[in-house]
């Protein structure tokens, strides 16, 4: 499409991790750990170098013209469908590439320490490399199918990594659950692809973007009065909801924490789960054509943000809290892109990557210290015992709570303010923006509360761990702390690339928004007053949340927390049980499906088809076989009797004149014409036909002709009898038929 597309070896970016994975799978088992780590880190590091080089030195020159493109080969081309195995880097995918390779590299380093004692060390790094490669394919994919390759690839890696410690059944179950839930989303994604192809005739993002203009077929009504763009957006969003853990498909993410913690940080916080947000941003051109689809995205996002935050209030597992926090933050991102504020959604994705990765790695570090346990009820007072981790966690905590200057503040504020300010929904859906905004504000309050609860319960006050565990508590090795510090810097200062420079009269200060403009359109223009108002409001809410949490949990479980739990035991339990959504799914979908399939197997497959249909035919043949044998009684005279009877029957039937099985009768008025000849055959020679129309025993018409006409005096029921005689043999055949003249007349 774009004449100035520039070729660049983008393929190296995903290829290096893939190669790393392949090498590790094939040879890693025999290598030393250092060698494994070197290969893995080199693969992702090399990939990062290429990505940085591409993004900073090559991309700016061509960003306006659609970015860099690298076609490996034609993947599938047949009929009117043509898909290249091609990669494209524009500002959006470039940014994601940077995040993935950079954080991925950090997590590789971190894992070196974290997985030190694991016997499956090479396998872990192979998976990690495989994941990075798939994720890079996902973001760099030039067309929807290529993206789908990465999309499924990361799902696979997620499956493998969640179930990394496969020998424990719950882990394996969690992996399977993640994969299958993701597949439900993929189903939606696939339908979205089909719809897109049907509407636009292409699957390349750049072509879709240029095709998606207001008057195109995308805005034409397609089904149920909604436009193509709406259905594409909705189905794609199902895919996004699956991958990014939105209502109703979020259930897999909390379980996914069964995987090693670095995996949770990389896959289930920083990168893979944001793929849905990325995809919506990627398809922004289609989404903006359908405010209704955007409204669904925004509302689901906002609802998820709040719902997950509430569940986060009562979780007692460190990583579970972070998991629900991730779900909630993803909701923010969707709310951002769903209000057509794509840059802010991506901005939050970017800041979230840092602070959530940081939080998870802190969690890993602390669980490392706590001998693997993640129960926050047994923690407390870790501030002094693990000072570096505490410091990093502090920064990240403030960032996620939205305390000013920290990264989360800017990105969250951009989303909230955008929700109130957006004009995308027009008049019909004008309520969506404010609703989303209010939900997000509540969610922000909740975020501040549960994150603070986590912080206070873990780090403040005296430790609640038992003596043995306490004895082991120690700060993590430098290989783990180093990446933590880097992430903390990112979490603390990363927001500065997206400061709302417009407030200060310097829009160019918003580096991120400026960069992304080429890829997802200009940032939403928010009035300065609104911007300032919501900055203030969210700051206040963050502080309220923190304060409230301090009242409840500062230095351990305080009296108000216990009182609250005592006052609403049912509600607290319900929240702790995550509103029992998993159980609901189990009871409503999964178990019935299995039972249904089992019943189908037993009834339809075994009984109906195999026994009744097939077995029935076989049994019938068998019975006929037995019957045929029964004639053969062994007595020669019976044989001869059969012979004689057969001969007699043969002679008898061979000398009967043949008549048709039914008479052909044509009626007009009260006149009937009857044809007694056999269908399609000439009348046999020499036969006499006697037609008795009035059933009085005396034929009215007699002759050699096989047809006759007769007119009745009156309507009513009549019986026609035809007797066919062969004069040579004096053999006869008879046939009769009843006719109802009046009815026949009426029918005519």
């Amino acid at each position, binding site marked *: 499409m774009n004449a100035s597309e520039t070729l660049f070896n983008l393929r190296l970016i995903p290829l290096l991790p893939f190669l790393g994975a392949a090498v590790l799978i094939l040879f890693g088992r025999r290598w030393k750990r250092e060698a494994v780590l070197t290969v893995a880190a080199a693969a992702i590091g090399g990939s990062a170098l290429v990505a940085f080089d591409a993004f900073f030195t090559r991309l700016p020159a061509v960003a306006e013209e659609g970015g860099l493109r690298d076609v490996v080969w034609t993947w599938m081309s047949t009929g009117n469908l043509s898909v290249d195995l091609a990669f494209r880097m524009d500002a959006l995918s470039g940014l994601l590439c940077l995040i993935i390779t950079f954080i991925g590299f950090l997590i590789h380093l971190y894992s070196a320490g974290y997985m030190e004692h694991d016997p499956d060390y090479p396998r872990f790094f192979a998976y990690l490399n495989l994941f990075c490669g798939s994720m890079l394919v996902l973001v760099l994919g030039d067309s929807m199918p290529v993206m789908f390759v990465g999309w499924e690839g990361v799902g696979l890696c997620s499956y493998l990594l969640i179930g990394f410690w496969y020998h424990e059944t719950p882990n394996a179950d969690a992996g399977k659950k993640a994969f299958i839930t993701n597949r439900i989303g993929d189903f939606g994604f696939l339908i979205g692809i089909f719809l897109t192809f049907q509407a636009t005739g292409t699957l390349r993002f750049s072509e879709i973007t240029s095709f998606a203009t207001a008057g195109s077929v995308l805005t034409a009504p397609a089904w149920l009065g909604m436009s193509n763009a709406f259905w594409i957006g909705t189905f794609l969003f199902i895919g996004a909801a699956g991958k990014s853990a939105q209502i109703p498909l979020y259930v897999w993410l909390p379980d996914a924490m069964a995987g090693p913690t670095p995996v949770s940080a990389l896959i289930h916080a920083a990168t893979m789960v944001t793929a849905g947000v990325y995809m919506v941003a990627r398809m922004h051109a289609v989404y903006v054509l359908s405010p209704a689809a955007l409204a669904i995205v925004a509302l689901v996002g906002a609802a998820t943000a709040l719902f997950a935050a509430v569940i986060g209030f009562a979780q007692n597992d460190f990583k579970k809290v972070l998991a629900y926090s991730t779900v909630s933050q993803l909701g923010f991102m969707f709310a951002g892109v769903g209000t057509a504020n794509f840059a802010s959604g991506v901005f939050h994705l970017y800041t979230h990557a840092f602070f959530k990765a940081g939080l998870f790695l802190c969690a890993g570090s602390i669980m490392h210290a706590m001998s693997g346990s993640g129960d926050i009820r047994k923690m407390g007072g870790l501030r002094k015992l693990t000072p570096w981790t505490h410091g990093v966690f502090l920064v990240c905590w403030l960032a996620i709570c939205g305390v000013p200057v920290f990264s989360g503040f800017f990105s969250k504020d951009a989303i909230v303010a955008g929700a109130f300010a957006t004009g995308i929904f027009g008049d019909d859906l004008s309520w969506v923006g404010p609703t989303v905004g209010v939900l997000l504000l509540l969610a922000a309050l909740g975020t501040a509360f549960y994150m603070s609860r986590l912080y206070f319960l873990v780090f403040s006050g005296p430790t609640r761990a038992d003596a043995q565990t306490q004895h082991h508590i120690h700060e993590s090795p430098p290989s783990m702390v180093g990446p933590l510090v880097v992430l903390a810097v990112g979490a603390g200062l990363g927001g500065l690339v997206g400061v709302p420079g417009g407030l200060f009269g310097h829009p160019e200060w918003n580096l991120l928004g400026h960069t992304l403009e080429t890829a997802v359109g200009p940032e939403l223009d928010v009035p300065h007053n609104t911007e300032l108002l919501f900055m203030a409001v969210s700051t206040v809410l963050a502080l309220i949340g923190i304060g409230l949490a301090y009242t409840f949990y500062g230095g351990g479980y305080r009296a108000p927390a216990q009182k609250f739990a005592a006052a609403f035991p049912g509600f607290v339990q319900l929240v702790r049980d995550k509103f029992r959504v998993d159980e609901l799914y189990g009871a409503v979908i999964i178990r019935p499906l299995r039972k249904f399939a089992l019943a189908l197997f037993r009834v339809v497959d075994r009984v109906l088809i195999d026994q009744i249909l097939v077995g029935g035919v076989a049994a019938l043949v068998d019975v006929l*076989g037995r019957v*045929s044998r029964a*004639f053969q009684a062994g007595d020669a005279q*019976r044989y001869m009797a059969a012979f004689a009877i*057969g001969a007699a029957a*043969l002679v008898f039937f*061979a000398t009967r004149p*043949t008549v048709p099985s039914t008479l052909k009768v044509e009626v007009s008025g009260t006149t009937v014409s009857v044809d007694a000849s056999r269908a399609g055959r000439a009348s046999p*020679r020499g036969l006499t036909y006697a037609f008795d129309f009035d059933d009085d025993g005396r034929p009215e018409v007699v002759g050699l002709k096989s047809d006759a006409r007769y007119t009745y005096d009156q309507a009513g029921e009549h019986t026609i009898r035809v007797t066919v005689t062969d004069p040579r043999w004096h053999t006869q055949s008879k046939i009769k038929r009843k006719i109802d003249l009046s009815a026949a007349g009426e029918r005519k």
Partner: protein
Amino acid sequence: MIFDSSQILAYLPMLILIGMGCLILLAETFATTATASRQGLAWLGVGGCIASLGALLAQWGDAGQATTHFQGMLIVDRMALYLDGAFLAAALLTLLFAPPFLREQGFEFGEFYVMVLFGAAGMMMVAHAAHLVTLLIGIETMSLAAYILTGCWRRNLRSSEGAMKYFLMGAFATGFLVYGMALVYGTTGGELSYAGIAGKVPEASKNPVFYFGEYFILIALAFKVAAVPFHMWAPDAYEGAPTPVTGFMAAGVKAAAFGGILRILDTAFGNPLLVFDFTGWANIIVVLAAATMILGNLAALRQDNIKRMLAYSSIGHAGYILVGVAAMGLGVTTAKPAVLFYLMSYTFTTLGSFGVIAWIGNRRDERLFIDDWAGVAQARPGVAMAMALFLLSLGGVPPTGGFFAKFFLFRAAMESPQLYWLVVIGVLTSVVSIYYYLRVVIAMYFRDPLRPLEPTDAASTRAALILTAMAVLLLGILPGSFIEWAGPVIGK
């Protein structure tokens, strides 16, 4: 009445067989009880068959044009010679299969071989018959030989019982045949030759008695081919007869009777007046064919005695061939060659399979039940493979002669739209037949042996098995010449 050498030459194959039979009878009086001299009798018979075959081949070239002899009583044409070949093959193979069997069972008499030769001569007579007299003589020669052969296993209860049933019913059918011939003779105004009858048909068909005559002859011939409902002798006679004889009967007698049917229906009763319409024999044949295919194959399903199973299967095959006869009646010119090819292929297949059945047993242990065949493939893979080949051929699976036989037959029948449904019945019953044929294959290949195999092994049996297997394969891979010799394959 003028005899000339050409007439004698034309019937040389038949005469050689008869002469050789007489020679064996004579020779036997001089033969000692030693095995070797008995064997010599059998080899005499084999020699007779080969000489006869040579005489047959010598006149093949001249037989392109049909010639009648003896005032229209006998005819020489390609069809007759083709069938003669089948009869000779049947006799030859029987003479190869039988001696070890007879020796093992202890009733090796020279008369046995004589009867085989005489029976074959009778079959030839039927195939050549163009006159009711020769037809009757042929059928009776063949049948009497068959009765004797069936009953010749004197100490065996089943043999004498089978012979009795076969004989009584056969004679009963002969009664019908003779009576039918008398009626036809009278109503056609004194015609006995096929050509003469055909000439009088327009006149005679006005007389209902003529139809009685026609039907009675038809019934008698249907009895010989074991068409339902005239089939009931077949299972008992086949089971009772000594196994090599069963093969001879199933192949030769059936082929001869079909030869007779084909010729008499084609020439004497070939007038459309007799074929079509409700009184036409086409109707009758169609019904007989359907009933025969269905009942034969269904009844075979539940048989555990392999001879009995093959007996019912041979009834089923008669049904298939009747489809071809019906097609011929409906004007399909390619039907007759198809039937002939079927008979040829069926001859080899049946003889081969009964040869294996004769081979597998011994004096103490006949191994006639399918379960007795367990594990044959492990002990004797070659014979098992041959048997599997025969069974697959009977079932009509490529690449065997049986497949092409069915194929040609159904192909011919498909030229007549009235027969589509018959073809469908044919293929469905073929599926049924595959089921019971495969029971034997299952036993041979898929089961482990129950007890050691002690077959009645002999060089002649092996040679015959190799011959038959090769023939079945040859018919299945290169059927071209065989079908073309049988007559025009392309109609219209």
